[in-house]
């Protein structure tokens, strides 16, 4: 779903609406529930991080809430899919973008194919989280109610713990890059995700195809 040009408001005069209120709510809901699951999950992951469970209200409390908050995270991800899946489809340009990702890493963005509402890196992260959430949900249910897994199928519990942990680690890898990109590399994106608006120059520089589309211009 692509945003339309904003009705000029005094506080956002000359800016473009990048994220609707629903999109921002959905993003932060998913983000903070993920963060909670990350913290409590890491507490169970390593004795050296078990203190996180104390900070978050105690270990039995963390064990109680981790799966429940995770369900909210999954619902947030489903909502995200409803709002963004079309914008996240990989295109031919994205494939070339990924081939030339070296240029993106070294800040030579001008050498890359133009990005639409999301660039190929963002799309990759999106799909990583969607599939990550599916794997975490599926395996997490077995970890949530191990007492219902029959003794003869004990191997299922063992496999599911491994799946859960590997899926968590893979999403953590994406998450580190996501936070780094949005907070440090492109601080304007944090403003965009909180206020909903970006200035035209930023939109034109980093998301040219989207910019042209929503402003009704032609290249």
């Amino acid at each position, binding site marked *: 779903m692509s945003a339309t040009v904003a009705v000029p408001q005094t506080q956002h005069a000359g800016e473009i609406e990048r994220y609707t209120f629903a999109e921002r709510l959905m993003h932060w809901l998913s983000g903070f529930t993920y963060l909670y699951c990350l913290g409590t999950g890491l*507490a*169970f*992951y*390593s*004795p*050296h991080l*078990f203190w996180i*469970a104390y900070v978050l209200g105690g*270990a*039995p409390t*963390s*064990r109680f809430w981790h799966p429940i908050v995770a369900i909210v995270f999954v619902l947030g991800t489903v909502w995200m899919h409803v709002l963004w899946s079309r914008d996240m489809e990989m295109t031919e340009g994205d494939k070339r973008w990924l081939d030339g990702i070296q240029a993106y*890493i*070294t*800040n030579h*963005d001008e050498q890359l194919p133009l990005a639409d509402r999301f660039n190929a890196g963002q799309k990759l992260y999106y799909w990583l989280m969607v599939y990550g959430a599916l794997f975490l949900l599926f395996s997490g249910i077995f*970890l949530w109610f*191990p*007492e219902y897994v029959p*003794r003869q199928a*004990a*191997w299922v*519990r*063992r*496999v599911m*713990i*491994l799946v859960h*942990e*590997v899926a968590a*680690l893979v999403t*953590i*890898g994406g998450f*580190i*890059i996501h936070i*780094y990109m949005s907070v*440090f*590399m*492109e*601080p*304007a994106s944090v403003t965009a995700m909180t206020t909903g608006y970006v*200035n*035209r*120059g*930023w939109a*034109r*520089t*980093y998301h040219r195809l989207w910019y042209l589309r929503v402003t009704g211009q032609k290249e």
Partner: protein
Amino acid sequence: MANGTLQIKAISGHAGTVPGKNTSRDYDVCKLIDVTTCIGCKACEVACLEWNGYPFRETVFDNTYQTMPDTAWNYYNLIRFNEHVNEDGTLSWLMRKDQCMHCADPGCLRACPADGAIVQYTNGIVDFQQENCIGCQYCVTGCPFNIPKFNPTTKKVHKCTLCSDRVGAGLEPACIKACPTGCLHFGTKDDMKDLAETRAAQLREHTSHKDAGVYDPPGVSGTHVIYVLHDINNPERYGGLPKDPRVPWMVRLWKGPLKWIGNFGMVAGIIGVAAHYMRFGPKAEAEPEESKK
């Protein structure tokens, strides 16, 4: 059960050192169960309930002499009955006292994520500390003997304590005290091993049980509960005693290499993005105004 008089040598989910590690000359304790002299009277089951203060729980009748199908969170100790038909058509009525084996390398403790929910004393007893338990049941996944049992109401896991509260006070476990035939013995691991081997040799020499032997499985570095069996080659006949119990390899992978790979990956990722910032810096600020082309 917490026990202040016993030194601890291993703690679950614990970062850092442990007070009793390599500092104590405590004897390893051991319970010896000679299944060849067990008469299935269940005095030990009663003594266990009495000492631990549990009421008798509900059970189901399944046409055997067994009190209930499996041990439970408030029923640590169960005589398993098996009617085994031998090759020559004779019947062996096998009875085995089933409870925690107090493994020297306990899978439950390895798997547990909660600091101090499972401890191992220097005398070898493995004990659950329910106040620290988070109810995740990883211990169930880690145990090769199907021992830890979950209480769904309190969300805590329980198992045989080897009467650590009695042993810490210089007493023998309650089951030992109750056994009328002397099939249960308690003492140091060395003494019990000696006694067990003597009994097994006696069985081999003076009875038809030519395969009698001692069950002290090396896959978990030995246990602090050992059996004398009529037939050491077929422990499964005794109500599913595993032949070669080990901490499952997937549990080892999860608690060993996977942690190191994961920790390395996360730290490397954070260092990596920090290095990237220093080397390449943020993306260029875009012009606030639309640049006319």
